[in-house]
Each structure stands twice: as C-alpha cells, then as structure tokens.
C-alpha cells in the first residue's frame, strides 16, 4: 500500500511538471509543445515500446527456455553471452548503427529497441527454468510425468513469475531507450526531449522527460500487477503462518 502511495505521488509530480510547462506557452524564443503534440509523441513512443517488447517476448522467451532443454544446453553460453553483448554496447550506438543498416524510419528504431531489450527477457526465461529445484523435476519424473507434462504442469507455472519479471524490466528499459529512437527516424517523446537539448531549454527537456518517466512507472506498475496475478498462490506464501 505504501508503495502505491509513493508511485501515485511521483506520477502526480511528473504530470504536474508537464501541465505547468505546457501551460507556459512560450519560453524565451521557443514555443512549448502543445498537448496535442505531447499526446501524439506519447502514443508513438508507446507503440514502439509495445512492438519492440512484444517481438522481444516472442523471440526471447522461447530462446531462453530452449537453451535449458537437454541437447540445447551447449547453446546457453553463446545465447546469453550474445544477448549480454547486445546490452553492453551503449544504447545510442545500437540505435545509431541501425540507420546505415536498415535506413531511417520506424523499423530500424524497432529493431534497435528489440535488440537492446532482449537480454532481460532471455536471461530471466533461462534462469526461471534452470533455478527450479532439480529435486522437484526429479520427483515429477519419478512419478511418471512425461516431458510435456513436466513442462506444462511443473516448469511453466514455476517459471512464469520470473519470466514476467524479465518482460517488465525489459519494458521499463525500453521506455527509456526509446527516447533515442528519434535519431534514426523513429518518433516518440525523444522528439520533444532532444528538441529541448538542442535548444538548451531545461523546461522543454522536462516536457519530454516527465511523460517518459510517467510512462515507465505506469507500464511497470501494470506489468507488476499482471506478474502477481500470474504467480501461483502456493509460491506467494512467505513463511508458515
């Protein structure tokens, strides 16, 4: 409950900043962005994040799970390592490199965001399966469950919360990285923020940064609620009584 109060307070502050700056109308020689422009940029920002994370989930979860399967474990190190490298390269570089490769536009922005957000999803999917107590899997095997039954009834329910955490972390990261998408022809709130940067106007920077932060908080909260809902009841009990 206390956490929710903190979250709502933060959101209120961020929205307050946005409302205040937007209300200024003009700052020095620059006009501030209008509500219409802010909403449009927010919408395109959200679209990039959702598409990039969705692709990341569709590819990352099966990939992370696959490398835990017998016969594929040799691939674990290259796959996790590869995803690691994707994230070690500064986000700006990942995004910048997409322009010469794929040209300017929405698509190269999406590819860059997808690559950058993949690691938490792959890594969490991988550890979610691998961290299940081997005794549990052995018990399931010893009781006569088939591989498929073990995957569906035991591994998936136990792994689900950890996989969801990966998706949430990836989403929050991607909201931030998407600020830079504008550099390769993507849209998003980065357009506002970078305008402020080039104009050296702090308030305009805030006009882009505050809604971005608000989006990260809101998406994080939604996904956390979802995560909780996906967690089997038996795992939520902390200690007896």
């Amino acid at each position: 409950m206390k956490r929710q109060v903190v979250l709502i307070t933060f959101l209120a502050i961020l929205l307050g900043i946005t409302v205040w700056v937007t209300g200024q109308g003009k700052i020095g020689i620059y006009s501030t962005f209008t509500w219409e422009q802010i909403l449009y940029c927010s919408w395109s920002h959200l679209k990039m994040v959702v598409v990039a994370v969705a692709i990341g989930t569709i590819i990352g979860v099966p990939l992370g799970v696959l490398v835990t399967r017998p016969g594929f474990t040799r691939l674990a190190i290259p796959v996790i390592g590869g995803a690691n490298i994707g994230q070690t390269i500064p986000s700006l570089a990942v995004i910048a490199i997409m322009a010469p490769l794929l040209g300017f536009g929405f698509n190269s922005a999406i590819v860059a965001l997808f690559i950058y957000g993949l690691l938490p999803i792959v890594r969490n999917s991988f550890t979610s399966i691998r961290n299940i107590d081997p005794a549990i899997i052995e018990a399931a095997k010893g009781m006569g469950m088939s591989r498929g039954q073990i995957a569906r009834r035991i591994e998936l329910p136990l792994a689900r919360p950890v996989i969801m955490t990966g998706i949430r972390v990836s989403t929050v990261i991607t909201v931030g990285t998407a600020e830079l998408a504008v550099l390769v022809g993507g849209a998003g709130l980065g357009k506002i923020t970078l305008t402020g940067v080039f104009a050296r106007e702090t308030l305009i920077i805030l006009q882009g940064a505050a809604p971005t932060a608000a989006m990260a908080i809101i998406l994080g909260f939604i996904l956390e609620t979802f995560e909780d809902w996906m967690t089997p009841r038996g795992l939520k009990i902390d200690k007896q009584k």
Partner: protein
Amino acid sequence: MIELEHVSKVFADGTKAVDDVSFIVQEGELCVLLGPSGCGKTTTMKMINRLVSLTEGRILLNGTNVLDFEETELRKQIGYAIQEIGLFPHMTVGENIEVVPELRGWPKAKRRERAAELLQMVKLPAEFIDRYPKELSGGQRQRVGVARALGADPEVLLMDEPFGAIDPITRVDLQNEFLRIQQDIRKTIVFVTHDIYEAIKMGDKIALMNGGRLIQFDSPFNILFQPQDSFVQDFVGRDRALKGLQLIRVKEVMRCSPLTARWDESVEALKGRLPNDEGIEEIPVVDDSGGFLGYIDISLVQTGTVGEHLGHHQVKASIDSVLDEALSIMLSCERKTLAILDHDNRLKGLLSFGDIQRALGEADRSGARP
C-alpha cells in the same frame, strides 16, 4: 517382488557407479540400501524406476523386465518418495497427492477421496488438503511426501532418504509412523539411507554397499552380529551390542512362566513355597485371572497378605517391545526385573539384566568373528 540380476552402471565418464549387484526384495518386504555416500545405493534404486538407465544386467518387477514397460507407465506403478523439497510448491497438498492418480486417469471424486484417506493415514488434519507446502512444517511436508508416494496405491515403493532432512526427534516419529503404516499396507519397499540406525530400525533386509559393490545382503541382525568382512564391521561400529538392543524382541529373551505370587495369599504361605536355593527377592503379583498387579519384595516383609505389600505396578513392558525399550524402563525405574505383559495386561514373563546380557552374548557369539 523386485529382482536385481547382475546389475551394473557405468556412467558416460567411465565411472563404475554400480558393479554387479544382485538381490531380491520379496513381496511386502522393506529392503534398505545402506552405505556411505557415493557407494551407489541411490543409483541402484533409480535403476529400478529407470531414472538411471542400467548398463548391464536386468531388473525384474514382479517377474517382468522393467525395460519392457513404457517408461512413464513403469513409474506410475511405482510410488516414489524423496526428501520434502520434492513437493510441488505451486500445488496444494491435495493436488500433490492426486498427481499420480490423475496421471492414471482416476475420476476427480475418487482422487479427492483417496487424498483425504491418505492424509488421515499419515496423521495430518483433514483441512491440510487445501494448504500449500510452504504453509507446513518440514515434518508435515515429509508426511505429505509419503502420502503422495502412496497416492495411487502402488505395490512397490522407492524411498530416497525420505526422512534425511528432518530433525532427529521428528525423524523418529516419522519412522515409527511409517513402520505402523507399513504393517497395514505391506508394500514392497526399497529404502535408501546412509544412517545405520535408520537401516536397522526400518529394514527387513539390509543391502550394505560400498564402492558400487554389494558387500552384504542380510537381515539387520546378521549385519550386526555376523559381519561378512572388516568393512561391514567398521560400518556397524563398536557399539553393535547397543544397536542390537533395537533388534531383539523382549519375548525372545524373557523367562516364561516365572514364579508368581497371588495377591490374596499370605506372605508366610508364599515364602513356604519358594525354592530355597535361589536368592529371589522381587516376585510379580497377579490377580485371579493372571492380571499383573505389581511386585512384592519378600526380603522386606514377614506378615500379612501379599496384596498389602504391593509396589511398582508401573514397572512393566509390552510383549511386543524390543530390548532397548525394556532396558530403558529398567534403568530409569532402577529395577532389576521387569514384568512383560500381553495386550490384556496379563503377565507373560519376566526379564532381568542377566537375561539381556545373556541374549547379547549369544548374539555376539553366533557371529563367527574374523
């Protein structure tokens, strides 16, 4: 019945974990696989339900080679219990117990009924059926583990150190409970442990292993008192006489039809019919139907009836108890003789320190010591 014939296991890296092991577990028998860690006992057990594939030899389950079953079918007919961490944390106690019945296609109502029945059998409250493993204590979880292994009423049970992670006091409770259950259900059981006390207590037979080989396959008594070689002797330890107390039943050692006193006869009459050669002091006193009332110490009394001088009526043991229980009563009550009673409280025999000494001496001599 489980038969192992010249079973060997060589792992991919070339280590020979199990080396030409053969033994038979008769129907309704509990066979303990015992040995130091790394001796191959767990591997041997896991070859029975094919969690580990065997390299050589064959294993027969009620006459059928285990390799002739489909893997999951084989496992569904063999109960499998491991330490309490093997429970599925996202399933309730009831769902855990119902796993194998469900895999075998039992209808929901029958499964639920079976789960409730098993909870009762392992002495857990009925409302636990809807609790989650994390809400239970370690000992309670282990009871669920045993109940789960019995889920679909298998004829054969494999138990891999099932009580290993439990504190010593709870462990003894669980062992006793399990022995009580086993008396009713009479399953054919292979039970892995490294604890010799547990092995002696639980086993009808003990298969003692070392370095992948079966060193001695025998009754607990023979493992203790007729060790085949120095390894067995060392594994048993110097205190085998004390361990042996757990194995010898009171009724095998007690003196039957001892001299008794009737509660209504006079002390004088009693003294009159005593054989005068032995220094008898304490005499058990019975009523008309042979029921035990207490003892009379005739070195202290001269007159009156026997009934007036009764004492120590609580110093007694059941005919089903083992020597270490009897000895414990004698030591804690500071008595030299102990009345042994049947279930209707009738006097069946008398046990003294001398009798215990004699029994252990005989057991010791029965083994040809190297």
